[in-house]
């Protein structure tokens, strides 16, 4: 139309862009420099060769991925594959158990008086504010051989004498459930709180049994919260390091331990990096799957991530 108008607009654009850069670039630069670059470097390490001191060296190779798949000097061994399967299995079982516990708890909180609800939520959340190592240490104390719980399990014949409930796969599962319970209760509680009771009443009217009414009116409404909870629980559970390390002993390792041990022992960085790539892929695949499911259910935006 005319030049001054265009000039004025582009001047405003420049000011806005400068503002955007000023506010956003320190944080963005920080994350890029101290997280994106390191992750990229780690991925690079996965394609390098393991040197004599456990540090990555040239030339580039796929040796680390071969090792991750179980091929070593002595031929193929299933150890790493077991670790991977165990990680998946522990994640699935722990997430399932967390749902089973959290669902009634979240519902129960919404049925209580409004003034009690914040306190009840706080009671659920507070244990997770304490350090993970301390919480896990508490379970070690509880499940060790000779403790009342272990003794009870022994008399019931659940475990061999003098073994104790820890270290074991069971202890790891328990630790995971304990650790992630609040992450499931919170989104579920939010979903229950928003529940449209008119729909529930209509359903009670329409369907004869309470189970049908629940399935058709209540459950679909809580699904977005449930999905958000699954994301918050399953993804960090899959990469868990502390709990299997402390409660699992040597026999209940998960992928996180496999990765970490390549670094803390300084034994094989490329192998650890390859494991980290696998973990990243699993994380993003999990996030993507949840988004897809969330979108298909129409509650896409409700899922937190």
């Amino acid at each position, binding site marked *: 139309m005319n030049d001054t108008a265009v000039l004025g607009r582009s001047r405003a654009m420049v000011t*806005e862009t400068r*503002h*955007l850069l000023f*506010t*956003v670039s*320190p*944080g*963005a630069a920080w*994350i*890029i420099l*101290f*997280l*994106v670059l*390191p*992750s990229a*470097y*780690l991925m690079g*390490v996965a394609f390098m060769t393991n040197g004599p001191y456990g540090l990555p060296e040239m030339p580039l190779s796929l040796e680390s991925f071969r090792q991750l798949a179980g091929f070593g000097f002595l031929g193929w061994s299933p150890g790493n594959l077991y670790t991977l399967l165990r990680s998946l299995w522990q994640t699935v079982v722990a997430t399932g158990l967390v749902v089973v*516990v959290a669902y*009634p*708890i979240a519902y*129960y909180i919404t*049925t209580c008086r409004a003034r009690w609800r*914040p306190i009840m939520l706080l*009671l*659920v959340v*507070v*244990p997770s*504010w*304490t*350090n*993970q*190592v*301390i*919480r896990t*240490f*508490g379970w*070690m*104390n*509880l499940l*060790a051989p*000779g403790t009342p719980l272990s003794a009870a399990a022994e008399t019931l014949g659940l475990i061999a004498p003098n073994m104790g409930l820890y270290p074991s796969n069971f202890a790891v599962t328990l630790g995971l459930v*304990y650790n992630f*319970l609040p992450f499931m209760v919170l989104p579920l509680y939010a979903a229950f709180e928003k529940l449209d009771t008119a729909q529930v009443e209509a359903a009670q009217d329409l369907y004869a049994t*309470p189970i049908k009414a629940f399935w058709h009116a209540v459950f679909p409404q809580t699904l977005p919260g449930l999905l958000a909870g699954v994301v918050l629980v399953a993804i*960090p559970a899959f*990469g868990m*390091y*502390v709990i299997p390390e402390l409660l699992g002993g040597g026999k209940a390792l998960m992928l996180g331990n496999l*990765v*970490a041990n390549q*670094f*803390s022992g300084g034994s094989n960085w490329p192998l*650890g*990096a390859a494991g*980290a790539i696998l*973990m*990243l892929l699993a*994380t993003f695949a999990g996030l993507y799957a949840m988004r897809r499911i969330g979108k298909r259910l129409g509650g896409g935006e409700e899922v937190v*991530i």
Partner: protein
Amino acid sequence: MRKRTLKRGLTGFWWLTLVFLYLPLAVVVMFSFNAANSAASMTGFSLRWYHQLFANDQIMSAFGNTLVLALASSLIALAIGCLIGYGMYRHRHRKLGWLIVLIYLPIVLPDIVFGISEMAFFVKLHELTGWFKPGLGTMIIAHVTFQIPFVALIVYSRFVGLDPTLFEAAKDLYATPIKRVVHFMLPTIKPALISAFFLSFTLSVDDFVISFFTSGPESATLPIYIWGAIKKGVSPEINAIATLMIAAVALAAVASLAINRRKA
């Protein structure tokens, strides 16, 4: 009739769950007062582990490191995260997908990948530049990295909750850009800044994995010290430190409850 049974069942389940949630913590607290050096049975009440605790230089230095790390990283993350939160708000109509991905990255990345990436990177940087020696400095950098997103999201959501014409009202009422920040924006988002700071602080104190991989020999924090002690074989001192940390959390919980009450 059936409803009441359901409610009673749920109440029972609720109390069971609370026992499940607090039993491990209660055990730690209980054994911290144990007279004997045993994690299996209580033999009597004693404060000896607490006395030992305060005499242990390693624990005292770990406590100092924990505080310095949490305080320094929270303050840096508050400044950077606050800016980025405001930038996200102000430019929310632009296409900022890349920024959202960047901000969520530290949240979704598994701790272990986060920790070892930074460790490997810092080792490499140290090799190349002589800087970034693993220690408190690298730990602060790592903690700031995972705190920034939380601060940014809290500040952003506070801004989104505001009436956008407030910004215009401030301009209209003669506030210069700097006065707008000092007299309008900062006071308005003060509650968000406070909760962002406390969340950052808690996240820092809670963190073990990332601290563990970015720390150096001199910079052990309390969780790292506890970890080492557990790995070496349980010492009842750990119960005492852990109890003090649990007490701090309980105090924070009561405080947050009191703040919520006053708001309501």
